[in-house]
């Protein structure tokens, strides 16, 4: 259930960015979550609905892009997608230590409305 504290941290970032950019209502938040991140998307959106009540982000849609696990072999410089959690170079068979992606837990963008009249 650490999704609750992740949801709270996410809300803190959204409120901070909303203040910076003068957003009064948030419609959509895009996230990037790595496949190896220990986060259940459904649980995160559920928790976010709870913590965002009566805030600028109340009712905002959370869009999650899943990021595949990728790694780089330092022997043959090959970057590849890690299948079935096997960190092994598909070309030379060496064990691979450098992970490139797959643990992301990022906010990518926030969409919302400013209080200003656009015209």
């Amino acid at each position, binding site marked *: 259930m650490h999704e609750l*504290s992740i949801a709270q*941290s996410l809300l803190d970032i959204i409120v901070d960015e909303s203040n910076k950019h003068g957003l009064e209502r948030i419609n959509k938040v895009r996230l990037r979550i790595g496949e190896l991140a*220990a986060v259940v998307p459904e649980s995160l959106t559920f928790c976010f609905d709870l913590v965002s009540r009566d805030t600028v982000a109340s009712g905002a849609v959370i869009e999650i892009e899943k990021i595949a696990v990728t790694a780089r072999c330092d022997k043959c410089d090959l970057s590849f997608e890690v299948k079935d*959690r096997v960190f092994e170079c598909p070309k030379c068979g060496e*064990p691979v230590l450098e992970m490139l992606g797959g643990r992301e837990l*990022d*906010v*990518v*963008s926030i*969409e919302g409305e400013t209080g200003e009249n656009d015209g």
Partner: protein
Amino acid sequence: MAEIKVPVVRNILQANERLAAENRSRFDEAGIFVVNLMSSPGAGKTSLLEKTIEALAGRMGIAVIEGDLQSSYDAERIQKKGVQAVQINTEGGCHLDGNMIQIALEALDLAGIDLLIIENVGNLVCPAEFNLGEHEKITILSVAEGDDKPIKYPLMFQICSALLVNKIDLLPYTNCDMEKIRKTVRQLNPAGKVFEISCRTGEGFEPWLSWIANKVAEHRKNRAQACASPRMDKH
């Protein structure tokens, strides 16, 4: 009203990462090697600590931060071994975070401490995402939990620098396949060390004890060099 899109690109856990970085500088200033010990409930974290402290307390200063939902039972167990132990009660929280460690550090006297072990809340999922400022993450898995755990909870086994497989004295009574654990962890985490131990019988403890003692010694040495190096480039 104008609808706008703001590109953000911020790590959701950045607040915790910042606290973890503060903890890390504090540990490094004090020259303390810090371990974040994680496992599911009942895998043997506190038993491992008791046995490790018994073996190493004469050679180095050790302190422990105990994380649990409730009770100070574990901290009391550790204090009986004659070392400082602070209990954090998360009151339902499933993991420790950087802030909880900052609060716990206020109750610890870090002078003379070489090794600080943080025993996380028993849980194979959440603690894996929250850095505390530690130098190494260590995971324990007991054979009674089954050999499928590294596949089911990959992050916990991917990020640890050492995995201790505990309760190997129970192997004859379980269907746990040690070779399967070794293979999965090798594929998931090629650099991770695997130690097979029994906290009950003491089997397999020597390699683990020398690994952790070496880590503490290396850390001390690197720190001494880092302190000395600014003078080396002067002619």
